[in-house]
């Protein structure tokens, strides 16, 4: 593969890997805190699947000679990360080990919007010019089907529930949309990613996302809040939340990077 294409591929894979890595981490922080025992099992199962997806992307990067998957996951600094800001945000105030006051409405709104976006991207990746990426996408897609079904059920149920639930969901959805601007972005060098036909264009995917979520929102009588563009995580623009997450995620690995766990 010639150099400009390789750089484009690396950029895209890092975006995909970092997205699922952080998404999985935020999901795992609900362990023991989810609204009921069934949800505890479901959330951890989805977090585990998603970590498996991140591992696949890091593995593809390892195969391209970018260093080991573990190193890519754990040693890159905040400004080198390419995940969307949406997945790095904390679940709410407080720390997991102390007194977490996490917001379940925010978790449901974020997970549904993110998973729907992931589904749109995975469908596009099945036709990627990079064959190993297309194969991984086919595999991830099968698991994603259940994730999307799960979050769409929660999203619909909370919105169809009490006045309080609806207010909380509205507030949560506004927060999610404020960070949604970079979800379908490929960053500064995005043109190279599209030219290499690694995935379809940003706007095509965003339009598909709108087309998919609109009937759900219309059914619930919800107006989608405006999408914000304050930061672009694809270009390494992140919030302090990411630093804290990376410190926790890398804690064990960074104790001794040569150890076999």
């Amino acid at each position, binding site marked *: 593969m010639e150099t400009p294409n390789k750089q484009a591929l690396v950029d895209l894979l890092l975006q995909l890997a970092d997205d699922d890595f952080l998404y999985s981490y935020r999901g795992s922080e609900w362990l023991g805190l989810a609204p009921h025992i069934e949800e505890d099992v479901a959330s951890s*199962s989805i977090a585990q*699947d998603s970590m498996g*997806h991140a591992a*696949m992307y890091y593995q593809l990067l390892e195969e391209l000679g970018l260093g080991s998957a573990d190193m890519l996951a754990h040693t890159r600094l905040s400004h080198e990360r390419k995940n969307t800001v949406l997945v790095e945000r904390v679940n709410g105030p407080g720390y997991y080990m102390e007194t977490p006051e996490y917001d379940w409405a925010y978790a449901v709104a974020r997970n549904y919007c993110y998973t729907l976006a992931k589904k749109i991207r995975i469908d596009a990746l099945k036709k990627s010019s990079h064959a190993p990426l297309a194969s991984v996408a086919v595999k*991830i897609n099968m*698991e994603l089907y259940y994730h999307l079904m799960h979050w769409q059920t929660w999203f619909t149920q909370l919105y169809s529930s009490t006045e309080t639930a609806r207010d909380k969901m509205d507030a949560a959805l506004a927060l999610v949309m404020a960070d949604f601007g970079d979800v379908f972005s490929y960053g500064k060098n995005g043109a190279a990613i599209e030219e290499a036909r690694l995935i379809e264009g940003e706007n095509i995917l965003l339009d598909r996302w709108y087309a998919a979520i609109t009937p759900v929102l219309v059914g619930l009588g919800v107006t989608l809040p405006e999408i914000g563009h304050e930061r672009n995580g694809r270009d390494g623009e992140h919030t302090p939340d990411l630093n804290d997450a990376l410190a926790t995620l890398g804690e064990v690995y960074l104790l001794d990077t040569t150890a076999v766990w």
Partner: protein
Amino acid sequence: MSGMDRLHDDIMRALDTVKDPEIDTVSILDLGMFESFEVAEHDGGYAVNVTVLPTFLGCPALEFIKQNIIKAVSGVDGVSRTEVGFVFEPPWTSDRITERGEAGLKAFGIAPPRQSEEGEWQIDCPYCGSTYVTMENLFGPTACRSIVYCKSCKNPFEAMKPVSTLM
């Protein structure tokens, strides 16, 4: 039977002793996780390279399965080295589970994954065969299983999720 045929049979028999780490009534052959193996001369014996399809990507059992394959195949007469590789092409789908695999799952109390022609998930109670069941939790104790309740015999049970490339 030639020496090579015997080696081939012995390896297949060894692979059939490798069970799912959590469901000891089904082997990796029953589940359709086994894809192929290659044999090459090595060190006066044979090196065997086994190719396996992972079921779910984040499945923590994969490393155990890999170690168990190495242990089982290395025990075959004439094998001096065993390697295991996971591949995603072809993708593992639930229709790779054999009839014996379905029986093994049922024996363990797990409903095998079945889909109708239209792609609808069909779940029969593994205890009484009733189709009068309700989904309790799409996500069960492992990534590949859901928790279901049988309204006929009033037993909770697990069902393996159908996965196909059409989803």
